[in-house]
């Protein structure tokens, strides 16, 4: 028993170690909240004085090796404790009939059986035995095991998710299609074990609409899309900010209003027409979006600096756009060439502009929306773990196992009770049973 193995097992399954690790995890998370947000003015000063703080990852606590190590150790400890609990639960709960009743056997036994049955105990009395056992909610003994098992599943699922999850954000304009290739994403995060499977899907944006509140904040967005896999349409439907669309292990989210794509038509000398699709990307922060772009007019040396307003407002005291809906679109342009400004003003949907023999019109404008796609096959494991924890906790506090013993000792009835939790309540229940046995109720 005193071997190294058993000592190690005792150490790994000790609640002291569990408590120590929970305290460490709490302290680590606390450091994470304090330092990672980097909002407190004292933090940059602290870092300047003690650069070591940055070296040990205090500005990015939740991905540091030591934070991960605490989680892994706690995971091992929880798993070991769960196994140890199973061993303990398999042994029957020991109850001693410590309390005298003043009632004699066997009349008392008969009455005790009735009382226990009325109190919804599962009663067992061996033939000619001198002991009655009443048990209730004994499955509740597994509550702690279930709860801890859930925690293990959550953490394992989270690690798996961290290693295998892929999430990416991509823009697509109405009428356009996004093809899943690595360089097409605005931002992409892949777990170290994520298997590169680009080309898995295509998303065609057929319609897009948005609504803004009175403060010009975008309050809702809705997209009507078709998802293709292997070149074939597999799902067509609507994605909203509260309703993503799932296709296999992929889930598509409505992410943001990325910008607008005005279609321009440049008519040059000799009536030569050149279509031009502008991508006006948002470069501001909500609710003050700014959709700008700098480009060169094709076939010329003319440099254009442009800003787009979807619902242009001429009132100089108000914002340049009344809303983010495409209603009265206008493109503020500054065209320069040959060292001078050729045009400075607004191009609207109704009126074209001319400069240096060129004519520019804007026949159509569509939205440019951003989506997020997530491929996380471990999510189901995390959720299973979550609900297992909740189920375990529910059992732990709402389904309390109880056991009552009524036994004959020297011709008299004695009683005793056991519970895993709430000993006072159990004692009150035993006292009630004794009072009923003694006809004091």
């Amino acid at each position, binding site marked *: 028993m005193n071997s190294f193995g058993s000592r190690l097992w005792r150490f790994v399954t000790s609640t002291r170690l569990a*408590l120590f690790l929970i305290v460490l995890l*709490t302290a680590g*998370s606390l450091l994470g*909240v304090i330092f990672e947000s980097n*909002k407190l003015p004292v933090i940059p000063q602290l870092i300047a004085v003690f650069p070591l703080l940055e070296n040990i990852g205090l500005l990015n606590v939740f991905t540091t090796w030591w934070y991960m190590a605490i989680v892994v150790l706690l995971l091992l400890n929880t798993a070991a404790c769960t196994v140890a609990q199973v061993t303990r639960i398999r042994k029957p709960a020991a109850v001693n009939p410590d309390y005298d009743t003043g009632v004699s056997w066997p009349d008392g036994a008969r009455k005790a059986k009735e009382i226990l049955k009325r109190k919804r105990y599962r009663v067992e009395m061996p033939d000619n035995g001198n002991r009655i056992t009443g048990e209730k909610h004994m499955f509740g003994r597994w509550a702690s095991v279930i709860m801890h098992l859930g925690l293990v599943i959550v953490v394992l699922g989270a690690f798996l998710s961290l290693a295998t999850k892929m999430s990416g954000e991509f823009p697509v304009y109405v009428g356009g299609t996004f093809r899943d290739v690595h360089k097409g994403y605005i931002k992409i995060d892949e777990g170290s074990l994520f298997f590169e499977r680009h080309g898995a899907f295509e998303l065609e944006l057929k319609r897009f609409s948005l609504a803004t509140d009175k403060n010009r904040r975008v309050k809702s967005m809705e997209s009507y899309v078709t998802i293709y896999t292997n070149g074939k349409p597999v799902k067509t439907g609507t994605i909203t900010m*509260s309703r993503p669309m799932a296709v296999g292990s992929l889930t598509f989210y409505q992410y943001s209003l990325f910008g607008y794509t005005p279609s321009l038509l440049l008519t040059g000398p000799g009536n030569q027409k050149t279509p031009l699709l502008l991508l006006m990307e948002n470069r501001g922060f909500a609710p003050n979006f700014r959709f700008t772009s700098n480009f060169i007019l094709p076939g010329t040396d003319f440099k254009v600096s442009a800003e787009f307003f979807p619902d242009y407002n001429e009132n100089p005291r108000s914002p340049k756009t009344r809303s983010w809906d495409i209603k009265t679109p206008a493109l503020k342009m500054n065209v320069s060439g040959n060292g001078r400004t050729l045009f400075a003003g607004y191009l609207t949907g109704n009126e074209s502009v001319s400069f240096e023999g060129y004519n520019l019109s804007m026949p159509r404008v569509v939205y440019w929306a951003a989506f997020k796609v997530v491929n996380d096959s471990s999510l189901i494991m995390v959720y299973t773990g979550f609900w297992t924890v*909740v189920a375990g906790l529910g059992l732990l506090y709402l389904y309390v196992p109880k056991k009552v013993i009524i036994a004959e000792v020297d011709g008299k009835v004695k009683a005793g009770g056991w519970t895993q*939790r709430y000993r*006072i309540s159990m004692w009150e229940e035993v006292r009630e049973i004794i009072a009923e046995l003694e006809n004091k109720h």
Partner: protein
Amino acid sequence: MRYEIVFHWIAVAVYAISTLVFVYSLTFHKDRFRLGVILAAAGLVPHTLALGIRWIITGHGPYLRVYEVYSSDVWVAILVYLLVQKWKPGLRVIGVVVMPVALLLIGLAMMASPEIRELPETFRTYWLMVHIFFAKFAYSSLLLGTGCSILILVKKRYETRGGWYKKIPALDILDELAYSFTGFGFLMLAVMIVAGSIWANNAWGSYWSWDPVETWSLISWLVYGIYLHLRRTRGWRGARLAWLSVFSFGVLAFALFGIGIFYFSTHSPYISG
């Protein structure tokens, strides 16, 4: 809107009198707790009307911004307190803790802007309801657990003085009640975190993003986990566990009231301002 504010202020006034009755009983060793409870119940009537009107006007539950969040938190806390003292009349004295906290919170709510904010699209999900429902019950249950713990500390210190202190339930009963409320609150907190994660995943494609409020909720859960482990496996009881309970509630309260001040969080626009 005007009726809602009037009903709110009536509720504040009645809660204030109830708090005074509890404080008077505590200070002058008088047993006027029943009157305090009656007043708390009376205050709940205009409070319910105020929240009901608000609900109708805004078209959504009272859970956006300080005014709605704190007011509905107080409503749930007082309702739970009233139910608990009905179930165990010996716990009436917890009003000494519950009512001042409730008054403070509803006072803060009344100081905040009652301007109506439209429900963001990402909030139109049942998971948010589940998240908020369990959050409110978690806070209420943990407040009652803390109340029991404070009574343990009070009883230990002043029991020999007699008077109403003798009416506080026995220490072992208080200890078990504190444990029960804390355990129940721990469960509610777990469901709150899980429901919040599912909601976040549905809205933003990430079930956990180490947002300050999110992380602080985890910290609170871990701290309560430490409390429960210490009691169940290390045999902690009495004053030191009671102090831990008070500390734990402080940690939890910071998630609701403090984080929004110091850090920007996904929750900030909705639980502050």
